[in-house]
């Protein structure tokens, strides 16, 4: 933290970067619905943890909102049909943005089906005990909608011996291009507050803080006007800086606490949720619905009609891009934000629960990153960018000589959450983050082999 930041009243963390936001194209556009695609692809492993298990059979008719898969374990969630239609197959291998093909359910949409959710019942959520709330959250199929897709109910059950006293709601949206959380805070404010109250009840937390970056004053004002009178929920402005929305960074900014190395936020009594997750919970739980659609920002210069769209989960990427129109000379499609998202090689991947944005870059935009890599000049730019105060320069040099064990044991490789700040600032264009991801993948493989 520099001297200037110490005296500043804006809450923030040390280090980090300021990428160009590119949010103006979609920030003012209200959330709109997309029509149904003719065929929906619902992968059974959209979340972290065990894949879901199909509970429907081929040829079965399903209605919008009906459960079609049950959780495959505790760290797993069920799936719900995004459309009314008929199940065409249940174990087709489909492409994913991450690479390996995974089994998915294919559902043929009935042409006349409408957007009304047919599978629901009103539930009196105010009467539920914390344990029942956790079960209800799991039954809704809710995962972290910020991009990690970690099952939400798992975070509601902190490990034994710790209790959550503060719930932090992440409304930073520090990724360039993305504006879905911004629109959710503006348009679904009531549902957002309701969702936060339910989560507070489930973890028996006393207070909740919503962190909003100061480039979204309208969202901040809207939330301020709707906060409950009892003062249990507060809203705070934080500095516009990447990666402000990362769990550990936001805790640091708002509470001035640090999550221990290798630990979880629960260990210091904090749970962090995304605003999108909270707004969806506030919408789904009172009606016992499942998660079947999410807000996705479609942006970038390769898109003709950028905007924030409510997309049914399982819609093929190709269909979304047909709807918004694509310029001919696009060169790169990123699922998620440009900093932490996944470049996808195939248009046949489905929009899953963890996809917060689709960014289509035109050739000149993508080319600005020159491919030539120069040797490290030891300038230390990455050290003053790393929000976790790691040593990316040293880690990178160890990665080049393939000393992956030392990276883990001596330089805290596993604390790196791959935000990409080091690669972004490196004047030698060294793909540091990619090196670290390779190192982690190899270390994981070695550990599996040793077991």
């Amino acid at each position, binding site marked *: 933290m520099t001297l200037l930041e110490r005296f500043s009243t804006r809450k923030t963390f040390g280090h980090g970067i300021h990428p160009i936001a590119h949010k103006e194209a979609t920030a003012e556009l209200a959330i709109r619905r997309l029509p149904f695609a003719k065929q929906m692809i619902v992968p059974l492993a959209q979340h972290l943890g065990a894949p879901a298990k199909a509970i429907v059979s081929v040829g079965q008719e399903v209605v919008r909102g009906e459960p079609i898969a049950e959780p495959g374990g505790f760290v797993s969630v069920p799936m719900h049909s995004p459309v009314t239609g008929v199940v065409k197959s249940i174990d087709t291998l489909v492409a994913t943005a*991450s*690479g390996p*093909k995974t089994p998915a359910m294919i559902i043929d949409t009935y042409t006349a089906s409408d957007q009304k959710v047919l599978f629901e019942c009103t539930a009196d959520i105010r009467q539920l005990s914390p344990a029942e709330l956790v079960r209800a959250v799991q039954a809704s199929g809710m995962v972290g909608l910020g991009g990690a897709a970690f099952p939400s109910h798992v975070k509601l059950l902190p490990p034994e011996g710790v209790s959550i006293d503060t719930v932090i709601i992440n409304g930073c949206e520090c990724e360039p291009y993305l504006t879905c959380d911004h629109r959710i805070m503006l348009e679904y404010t009531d549902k957002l507050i309701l969702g936060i109250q339910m989560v507070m009840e489930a973890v028996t937390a006393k207070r909740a803080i919503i962190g909003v970056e100061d480039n979204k004053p309208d969202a901040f004002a809207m939330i301020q006007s709707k906060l409950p009178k009892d003062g249990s929920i507060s809203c705070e402005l934080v500095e516009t800086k990447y990666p402000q929305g990362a769990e550990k960074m936001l805790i640091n900014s708002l509470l001035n606490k640090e999550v221990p190395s290798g630990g979880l936020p629960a260990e210091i009594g904090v749970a962090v949720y995304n605003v999108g997750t909270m707004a969806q919970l506030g919408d789904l739980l009172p009606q016992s619905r499942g998660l079947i659609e999410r807000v996705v920002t479609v942006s970038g210069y390769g898109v003709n009609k950028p905007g924030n769209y409510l997309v049914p989960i399982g819609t093929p990427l190709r269909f979304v891009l047909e709807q918004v129109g694509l310029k001919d000379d696009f060169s790169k499609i990123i699922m998620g934000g440009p900093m932490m998202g996944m470049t996808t090689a195939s248009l046949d991947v489905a929009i899953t629960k963890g996809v917060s944005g689709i960014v289509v870059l035109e050739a000149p935009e993508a080319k600005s990153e020159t491919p030539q890599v120069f040797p490290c000049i030891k300038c230390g730019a990455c050290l003053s960018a790393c929000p976790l105060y790691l040593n990316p320069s040293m880690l990178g040099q160890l990665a080049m000589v393939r000393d992956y064990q030392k990276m883990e044991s001596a330089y805290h490789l596993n604390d790196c959450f791959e935000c990409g700040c080091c690669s972004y600032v490196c004047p030698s264009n060294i*793909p540091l983050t990619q090196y670290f991801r390779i190192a982690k993948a190899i270390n994981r493989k070695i550990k599996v*082999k040793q077991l």
Partner: protein
Amino acid sequence: MGELTSNLIAIAFMAGLGLILAGILVLANKRLYVHEDPRIDDIEELLPAANCGACGSPGCRPFAEGLINGTFEPSRCTVNTEESVRIIADYLGVDAGETNKKVARLACAGGKHVALIRASYSGLNSCRGAALVSGGGKGCAWGCLGMGDCAVVCDFNAITIDKHGLPIVDEGKCTACGNCVDVCPKDLFKLHSIEHRLFVACKNLEKGDEPKTECELVCTACERCVVDSPEGLITLGNHLAVINYDKNSLASPIAVEHCPTGAIVWLDNRGGYRTGKACKPTIRKKPLPIG
């Protein structure tokens, strides 16, 4: 006390200190001496000093210790010449053990001329890195990316990347150390006994003819090889032909004759392979266009 005396005191003091410390070192050398079998050094001399890890121990010296303890058989070292193995066995007075030469084999034949590349990857020139970006952009999610991580890690220069972007293993040089097996992000390499001549060079688990659009040399699980070969030699598992190498003695080139794509091959002992008559020949020499 002149200058001379003080100089003498200094010299005497340093000499005394040196003697005392030397005495401690002599004592330590006697009292803390670790007895080490002299045979370890002798055997280490006879080992190839490649420290490749193929035997399962971290390097050649631990392997030599293992030989003396009896945990390993001399033939466990696949890098060593047969003669050296025999000398070690004679020296230790143990059985050399069975030598079964193994080689690494790549379960993919989808070079750039037959397998579709969906999206071009630019960045770190490494299969490991490319595999993290949407699987590397190859149409077949199981296929070889051809950037040669395996050739880089091979300590014995046994792997070269051919013009179609496929690693070729030189069976003569390969010592089955397993470095390529560990580094391949798609887990395409596997150690096989050199006796295994019938081989399925594909790992695509997709059903039916669909993957044919992605690669011309894909196993479509049509079952022709299963029908043509003796009972139990080839089975179908996960939409892929699986060879039961326990019945390797029954294997013959007949199994590959009717394969329509050439995914199952008969490897000859000169490093080449043959496909069946029914297989459509690949005459394309250049890579397929990207898209």
